[in-house]
């Protein structure tokens, strides 16, 4: 039995104690009556259990009832391989993004690469320029890491003066989370032997835009890997098959897909994607460059725009938080527009630079309320309110938007995206 006081809100708007789920004996009871009238002694079988099921399949697909759980795609009108597709965060739970739903940003389509024809070249400020075959890399010691990849341009619609009304994934879904497995880059750089002057690395993909970008060698030696596997299987073509550079916690563009070349240098190359794009224009007229780290962010995924609350009463608020600086320390949720906050429960394991699922129980009384979440990471960084972010950076930076997201629940249970 649940004591009455357990259901007492711990913050405004009906937020309940996060430990409520764990309390023994808590049930939300309702009596379900079987529709079929069964003769005494007969037992009930669901329809699915009355005929032999379908045979085995070589590669499983989602249920036919889940066909709406898809990436939204948006390509350029003159070149359909230039654009993005978003992870439908509003339809997913847990922290791992299914491979077929990982967000995409391609500059000129998904290249078709035969791994037998693909090689990785390391050259520049090294003692030995080296060429690696994909099948050779498969023999190297590997490591696995669970981490998010978020496009530097994720959430950019939120810079606009009016809040966009679209499903969560379609403006914050250029963020996904996978287990990546591959060869620590440090091992390959050790093999090539870095020269003393080496400071940067220019990574290039084998796609039709030969996308390239610079990153500091320090990062490469710290935790970058040359990934071959994503969530246990070889990386999907749209995510970089056969090789992808993974730079945990850093903006998506430096996680170069279809990796073919690493040029070790003493300075950045000043590529288009680190000058014209992926730089943030500030109100002063100056732009921030090399803002690699994706700072702490959180989003309430359930409920969110497009969902509808059909009756008052008990709901679970659920969402995602992540930080490119390390682990999420705490997520707070507000159900009164930010006046009061309650600590949400963090799903274990809480990993560095990885999606963290948070949840908190909530009693909706049918009033108009505003839901918000804010992430705090292990460095103590607190996800800012939109107003604060705009005060610091103006609204023309385009990249690295990470402010608090607010959902207004109307009396009829409909949900609107608001700036509050």
């Amino acid at each position, binding site marked *: 039995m649940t004591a009455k006081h357990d259901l007492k809100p711990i913050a405004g708007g009906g937020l309940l104690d996060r430990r409520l789920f764990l309390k023994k004996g808590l049930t939300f009871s309702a009596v379900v009556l079987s529709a079929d009238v069964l003769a005494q002694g007969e037992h009930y079988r669901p329809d699915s259990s009355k005929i032999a099921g379908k045979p085995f399949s070589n590669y499983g697909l989602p249920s036919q009832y889940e066909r709406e759980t898809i990436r939204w795609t948006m390509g350029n009108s003159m*070149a359909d391989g230039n654009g993005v597709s978003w992870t439908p965060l509003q339809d997913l739970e847990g922290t791992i993004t299914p491979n077929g739903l990982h967000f995409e940003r391609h500059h000129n389509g998904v290249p078709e690469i035969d791994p037998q024809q693909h090689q990785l070249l390391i050259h520049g400020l090294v003692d030995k320029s080296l060429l690696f075959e994909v099948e050779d890399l498969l023999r190297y010691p590997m490591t696995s890491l669970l981490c998010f990849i978020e496009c530097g341009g994720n959430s950019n619609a939120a810079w606009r003066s009016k809040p966009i009304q679209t499903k969560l994934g379609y403006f914050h879904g250029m963020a996904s989370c996978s287990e990546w497995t591959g060869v620590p880059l440090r091992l390959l750089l050790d093999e090539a032997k870095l020269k003393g002057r080496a400071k940067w690395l220019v990574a290039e993909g084998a796609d039709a835009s030969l996308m390239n970008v610079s990153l500091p060698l320090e990062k490469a030696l710290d935790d970058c890997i040359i990934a071959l596997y994503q969530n246990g299987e070889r990386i999907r073509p749209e995510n970089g098959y056969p090789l992808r550079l993974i730079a945990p916690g850093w903006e998506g563009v430096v996680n170069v897909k279809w990796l073919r070349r690493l*040029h070790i240098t003493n300075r950045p190359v*000043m*590529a288009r994607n680190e*000058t014209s794009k992926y730089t943030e*224009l500030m109100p002063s007229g*100056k*732009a921030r*460059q090399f*803002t690699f780290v994706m700072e702490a962010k959180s989003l309430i995924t359930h409920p969110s725009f497009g969902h509808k609350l059909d009756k008052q009463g008990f709901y679970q608020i659920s969402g995602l938080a992540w930080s490119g600086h390390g682990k999420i320390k705490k997520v707070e949720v507000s159900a009164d527009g930010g006046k009061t906050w309650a600590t949400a429960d963090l799903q274990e394991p809480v990993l560095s630079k990885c999606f963290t699922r948070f949840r908190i129980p909530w009693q909706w009384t049918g009033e108009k309320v505003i839901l918000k979440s804010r992430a705090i990471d292990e460095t103590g960084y607190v996800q800012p309110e939109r107003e604060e972010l705009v005060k610091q950076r103006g609204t023309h930076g385009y990249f690295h938007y990470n402010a608090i997201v607010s959902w207004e629940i109307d009396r009829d249970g409909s949900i609107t995206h608001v700036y509050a």
Partner: protein
Amino acid sequence: MFMRNSLLILALLISPVLYAEETPELGKPASKALVEQWNNDIFPDGEGLPSGKGTATYGKKVYQQYCLSCHGVKGTGDSADELAGAKHGLTDNPPDKTIGTYWPYATTLFDFTRRSMPLNNPGSLNNSQLYAVTAYLLYLNDIIGEKEIMDAQTLAKVKMPNRDGFVNYQSK
């Protein structure tokens, strides 16, 4: 208990060595010629710029044939980015980011066009066509004259208006 602890200590002692050293060392030496063929990076100081040359006069023809369909007449933008003809500056609302108002280095323009453009046929232009179309875009942005020759020497010397417009956030 004792066993477990001593094994753990042993593992701690040997694992860093194993981790740093033990790889199959399967990288094959890459010849200088191969590296030169693969390396297409162009740096702001001009490192990597190929031979060839061009002016805006010829570049205009290249542009009209290979670029205009997506970037619009005189680079003012269409299905693809605006490249020239900014009507206002970076502190205006909204700001106008073009090659002329925003790009810090002219070498980036050559590099990006060579590696990625034209989007529907990347890698199809020769170096002189690339110098020429680069010259045309710089000319459209009032950065160089119509007759100025762009080549490996001159392009690296072009000072872009927004050269000092960037702050390295990383080193902050």
